[in-house]
């Protein structure tokens, strides 16, 4: 009996969302008097240390370059072997990157009930877990129960704090077999230009600056980028902005784009349509800058500035720079 946590292969440093998953597993193990085993796939020594800190009792470390991060089927086989090895009864995945895709694949194989996208620690009720998740694009939450012998939970990014337990787990090298023949092959990876220049991927960002149609055209995005740089924030946009190719599609947030829940979301020249709010209303703090007092976004914000974005945003950037000195 143990809680297994999946740490996805990732170029470079270990992802914050993976550490959130370890912290979640750590808390769950405490609640059900169990142990945490982390399944770390192609993770550096430094990454293994971070996993230990976040609360793993044992690490199964898989090092195999032929185990591609895009081959979900092979990754699921590795997780299945680890479940068997550890006699794991609950498996935790971060609901981003490969985690949200490997988790259901494994659930089908294990005949496990899956709850995808929880936002809080579970409640234990005998053999039952009661798990909370967002539904209707953030317009409600639901409590789900699952009582299968093996249970699978994926954790929405930015939902819980990373724990700091400073354990010294055994790191065991783990080499399960998997079939990579006829799998999905990665032909190339093109990194986004902004990210290459040191920009922050939107899905992981704690601070986000977002622009809408109120900015009038792509040539005006400099003020958004300047504010984002001053804060160390990622940039996002509303759907019409991405549809008009003012900004890349992966910046589109909302019901049909990415759903994010950063600590701070600054909406500039965005009206606050219900489909836009669906992707951002999980943000901890929302600031709205708009020149229309009737903009619906003001009803869904914590702080508002009524004014012209072209005047307000540069002033805000200067004020942030003063704070950061």
């Amino acid at each position, binding site marked *: 009996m143990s809680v297994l946590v999946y740490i996805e292969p990732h170029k470079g440093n270990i992802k914050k969302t993976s550490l959130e998953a370890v912290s979640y597993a750590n808390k769950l193990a405490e609640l059900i008097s169990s142990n945490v085993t982390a399944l770390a796939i192609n993770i550096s020594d430094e990454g293994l240390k971070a996993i230990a800190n976040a609360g793993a009792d044992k690490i199964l470390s898989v090092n195999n370059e032929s185990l591609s991060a895009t081959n979900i*089927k092979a990754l699921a086989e590795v997780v299945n072997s680890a479940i068997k090895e550890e006699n794991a009864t609950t498996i935790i995945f971060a609901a981003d990157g490969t985690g*949200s895709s490997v988790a259901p694949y494994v659930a089908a194989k294990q005949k496990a009930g899956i709850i995808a*996208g929880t936002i809080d620690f579970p409640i234990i009720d005998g053999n039952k877990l009661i798990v909370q998740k967002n539904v209707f*694009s953030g317009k409600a939450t*639901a409590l789900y129960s699952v009582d299968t012998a093996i249970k699978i939970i994926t954790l929405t990014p930015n939902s819980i704090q990373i724990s700091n337990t400073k354990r010294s787990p055994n790191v065991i090298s783990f080499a399960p077999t998997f079939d990579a023949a006829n799998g999905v*092959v990665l032909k190339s990876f093109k990194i986004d230009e902004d*990210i290459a220049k040191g920009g922050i991927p939107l899905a992981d960002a704690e601070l986000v600056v977002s622009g809408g149609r109120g900015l009038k055209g792509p040539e005006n995005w400099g003020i958004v980028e300047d504010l984002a740089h001053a804060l160390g924030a990622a940039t996002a946009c509303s759907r019409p902005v991405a549809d008009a190719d003012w900004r890349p599609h992966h910046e589109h947030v909302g019901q049909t784009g990415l759903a994010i829940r950063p600590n701070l979301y600054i909406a500039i020249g965005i009206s606050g349509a219900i489909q836009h709010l669906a992707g951002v209303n999980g943000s*901890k703090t929302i600031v709205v800058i708009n020149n229309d007092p009737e903009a619906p976004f*003001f009803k869904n914000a914590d702080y508002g500035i*009524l004014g012209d974005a072209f005047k307000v945003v540069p002033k805000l950037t200067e004020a942030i720079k003063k704070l950061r000195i």
Partner: protein
Amino acid sequence: MKILVPISQVPDTTAKISFINNDTTFNNAGVTFIINPYDEWYALVRALELKEAGKAEKVTVIHVGPTENEPTIRKALAIGADDAVRIDGDGDSSFVAGQIADYAQKNDYSLILLGKETISYNSAATAGLVAGFLDWNFVPYATKLDVNGNTISLEQEMDGGVNQLSSPLPLVVSAAKGMALQRIPNMRGIMAARTKPLQVVTPSTDFPVYTKVESYTPAKGRTACVMISEDNIDELVDLLHTKAKVI
């Protein structure tokens, strides 16, 4: 090659969400239902484009749900699917995915193209479950998909960049924005949809329901917005720093 497109039915994006029976049941009253946008705009339209390009023989839509959902299925036929299947049952993602996998296997579909997630339950789990039940290759969140004989080429946005991928058939794909452009059904399509085949299938008993919604809680709105003068931006920065503690 035959393509299977699973479609789900969801409340219209502007629908007011409320619950009844002590917050244990979604309140259908007065709610308009639509095809989940990812299924309709991206998965279905891309499947139709492939057929029009001579790269697929047939596009079938499949829905797991009760009789009253048939108007939603007819809409998919009006957009251009050749035929439709309704599995007459209801359940969680594992149940739904099991039914879809079972039907695909028994009826020789080799490409299953789903939406990335429903805008109702936001699980993004069905596609991976279908792939797992079938033991097929799986490409989630695809933004591009093309077919060259037995090889499928795809693009996927991940980790701040774009993956270019290829896979043999059979394959399960979940569609994200970018794969195709929304099509509005025309009058001819709507007329044709009335007579297109819609087969009703009894669910397989091999796939139980594993999870249950115990209760719902409507999201709490934010407390009143604090308005700050544009001449007093320092106050905002101070509040974000010392009160909200987010910067």
